[in-house]
Structure formats: structure tokens, C-alpha cells
């Protein structure tokens, strides 16, 4: 019993320390945003990788999820004799929760892992040391452009996911559930509020930042050799996914319980 409590306490303390290190790392990154030099080329290539190249996977997951959601809500709604709520619930479900969460998890899988593996390899092969000796701060050259790209691409990806998810629901509802297309769109539009959309974008920013930050943090702090790269990559994706879901809960609580 005592052993279990002790193990629990230990992992809680570890988690708190880890969180502290993330926060310090995030603050260090932030401190580089406003100090020159700014590496534009790095930033644009990060934007391409985080944002543009994530579009296909984000679009596909959102499309299928929106479609499935429409089917579920229709069958669930029928039990309460209210199958007509499909457009409203699909819209609110995608925009408030599923769009941001899907984007968060997809970029954790795609972007966090690739950043962590790349940076860990650079660390292991002394490329990070080489950067330093060439008077280039890794925080500024590697971390800041990627995190900034995450911050900016996050909301755009979420907007895309929200729209395509709603579109997926629309397709299913109008093609198989015999909803009227025009009414479906009108119902969706009327139901969504500005607050819904803003919360969605805010989540996108938060998740994009967390995903890129975790990739950089674990990459730069990786251990030695190929094994170190593997461990760093795995840990970064885990941490990003958990933190994104936790942040999602917190943000939902902040936006929708008032």
C-alpha cells in the first residue's frame, strides 16, 4: 500500500517537474520571438511542414469523423424523436471539440514526431553543437521558427478541419438521410456562434504550439545514439498528445462553463 502511494507520489512529482521544465523551455522560446535575428527561411519551411503538408491527413480524418458523427446523431436522435438535430449537433461537435482535437492529435503524430526525430538526430550527430560554434543559437534557429509556425498553422488547420467535418456530415445527411441541403446549411449557420468559432481557433493555437514545442523539447534533450532518438520521439508524441487533451479540457472548461 505504502509502496503504491509512494510510486504515485513519485510520478506526480516527476510530472510536476517535467511541466516546470516545459514551461521554462516555452518561456525561453518566447524570449527569442522579439529579439533579432529572425530566420525567415526556417520559418517558412516550418510553416510548409506544419501547416500545408498536414492538410491532407487533417482533411481526411475530419471528413470521415464528420460523416460518422452525422450517422450517430441521426440514430441517437431518433430515439428521442429528434433526428432533425443532426446539422446543429454536427456543427457544434466539430467546431467545439472534434475539429481542434483531431488537428491536435494529427499534428502530434505527424509534426511532433518528425521535429523530435530530426532534432534528436542533429543532437546525436553533434549538429546542434556545430550550430552553436557557428554563432547560431539553436533556440532561435531551430525552435522558435517551428513553434511560431505551429502557433500560426494550428488555427488554420482547425478551421479547415471544422469546415470539412461539417461538410462530411452534410454529405451523409443529404445523400443517405434525406436532409434538405439548403436547410442543412441554414441550420448550421444559424446555430454556430462567434464564441464557438473563436474557441475553436484558440484551441488550434494552443495545440499547434504544444505539438511543436514538445517536439523541440524532447529532440533537444535526447539521449545518445539511435536509441536516444527513438526514446525522444516516442516521449515527445506521448507528451504532446496528453498535454493537448488536457489543454482541451481546460480550454473547454474556461470557454463553456461561464
Amino acid at each position, binding site marked *: 500500500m505504502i509502496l503504491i502511494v509512494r510510486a504515485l507520489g513519485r510520478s506526480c512529482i516527476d510530472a510536476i517537474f517535467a511541466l516546470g521544465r516545459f514551461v521554462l523551455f516555452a518561456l525561453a522560446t518566447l524570449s527569442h520571438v522579439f529579439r533579432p535575428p529572425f530566420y525567415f527561411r526556417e520559418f517558412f519551411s516550418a510553416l510548409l511542414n506544419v501547416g500545408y503538408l498536414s492538410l491532407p491527413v487533417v482533411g481526411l480524418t475530419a471528413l470521415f469523423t464528420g460523416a460518422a458523427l452525422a450517422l450517430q446523431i441521426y440514430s441517437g436522435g431518433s430515439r428521442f424523436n429528434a433526428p432533425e438535430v443532426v446539422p446543429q449537433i454536427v456543427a457544434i461537435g466539430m467546431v467545439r471539440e472534434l475539429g481542434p482535437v483531431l488537428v491536435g492529435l494529427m499534428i502530434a503524430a505527424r509534426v511532433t514526431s518528425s521535429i523530435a526525430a530530426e532534432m534528436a538526430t542533429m543532437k546525436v*550527430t553533434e549538429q546542434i*553543437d*556545430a550550430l552553436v*560554434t557557428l*554563432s547560431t543559437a539553436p533556440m532561435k534557429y531551430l525552435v522558435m521558427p517551428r513553434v511560431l509556425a505551429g502557433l500560426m498553422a494550428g488555427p488554420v488547420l482547425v478551421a479547415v478541419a471544422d469546415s470539412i467535418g461539417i461538410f462530411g456530415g452534410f454529405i451523409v445527411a443529404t445523400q443517405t438521410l434525406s436532409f434538405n441541403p439548403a436547410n442543412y446549411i441554414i441550420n448550421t449557420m444559424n446555430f454556430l456562434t462567434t464564441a464557438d468559432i473563436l474557441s475553436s481557433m484558440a484551441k488550434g493555437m494552443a495545440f499547434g504550439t504544444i505539438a511543436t514545442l514538445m517536439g523541440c523539447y524532447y529532440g533537444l534533450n535526447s539521449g545518445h545514439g539511435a536509441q536516444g532518438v527513438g526514446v525522444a520521439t516516442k516521449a515527445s508524441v506521448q507528451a504532446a498528445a496528453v498535454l493537448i487533451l488536457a489543454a482541451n479540457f481546460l480550454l473547454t472548461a474556461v470557454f463553456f462553463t461561464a
Partner: protein
Amino acid sequence: MITFENIFKSFGHNHVLRGVNLKVERGESMVIIGGSGTGKSVLIKTVLGLIQPDSGQILVDGQDITQVKRDAFLSRFGMLFQGGALFDSMPVWQNVAFRLQRGALKRPMAEAREIAIEKLRRVGLAPDVADRFPAELSGGMQKRVGLARAIAAEPEIIFFDEPTTGLDPIMSGVINELIREIVVEMGVTAVTITHDMTSVDTIADKVAMLHRGTIQWCGAHTDMAQSGDPHVDQFVNGHAEGPIETLR
């Protein structure tokens, strides 16, 4: 110019440096020899702040390196890493011209590229290598690209970590001559780590031997043959028997 004062560094229970004292004068070519794993690479990394010593002080031009402005300080140095440490995301010429493409030493792209190709030529690489990626080169070619990068911005102080390891004897000769040339012509202060006695003979003004975490012997290259130190003799002659233990 560079002074190590009582440098200690351990990694866990591995006490690598145990009180290193060494002085490198301006315009001098110092060669550090010593067995594999004795901490030669660690020692030069402490100067650049890549590894923090546990205790002791490093002075460059009489100034403690922890007190100086990092950017200006680092721009005085060039470093060839033992493993090359080339950026694999960019072509060879951008690696060589890295410093010339950003920061205080920034030049127009065409000029930076020209300088890169010139430096590549000096280390015996043809211009067509410039547009290839590091992963497409042989180990020895990567080493030479690393060398070209270290000298590209014409720094005052250059560290060469095993510049000839992995090169054929002729290319080793070329690189040794090049390092000698850089020191003599450009007045660079050079610190070279090597196991290769031909390199020592071509490059060294002074030789320091690192053994068991301290400088076992340090003196002019011309005195090395009469050092009277059995460790140095064993190393120079490559004997398996002697005061330096070998595990077999």
C-alpha cells in the same frame, strides 16, 4: 591566448578531466595527443562552452570565457568536429558558407557560394561537390567539408578534432600541409587533436599529451623525442607494452 586552469569534468562516475592545466600561445600550433577516450574532445569542447567544466577556469586573452559575450566570442573560433557534424538538411556549399549567409558576416549569396567553392578546393574537393548533400559523400569527403566549414570565415582560433582520421595517406598529407599553411600564413592559433604521428610532425609547434585526466607532458615538438617521459615514448612509438595500460 587560451589558458586552462585546473579543469575538472566528470560524467557520472567517469572522471574524465582531473585538473588540466595548459597554455596555448597566440599564433602557435598546439597538438594534443593521448589515448582514445582520455577526454581530448571534451577538453576542446569546454572552450567553446559546449560542455561546462565542473570546476576550473578557462581564459581566452586573459578573460574568463563565462564572462564574455557569446556571439562575438564564438565568431573568433572555427571548429572541425570529430564526426564532421555537417548539416544534412542543406547542400555542401551552404554548410561551408553557413556563417557567411547569416549574422554579422552575412554576404550576398553568390559571393558566399564562391568563397565556399574556393575553400572546398583548398581541402581537395572539386566544385561539383558543392551542390551535393553531405549524406552522399564518403566519410573522408565529409571530414574535408567539415574542415572547409571550419576555415570558411577565417577565424583567429581553430580547433581540429582528428582532421586526418579516415583519409588516405596522400590526402592526409594535403590536409596536414593545409593546416600548417593556415597557421603560418594567416597567423591562426590552432589546436589539433590527432593520433597520427605524421600529423604531429607536420603540424605541431608544441605537443601536449593528455593521460588519466591531466596533461602528462607538454613541450616543444622538437623536444618530444628526448622527452624522457615513458608515456610519450610509448605513444610515439606505438608500443603495446609500457606505462599506458591497454586492455586485452
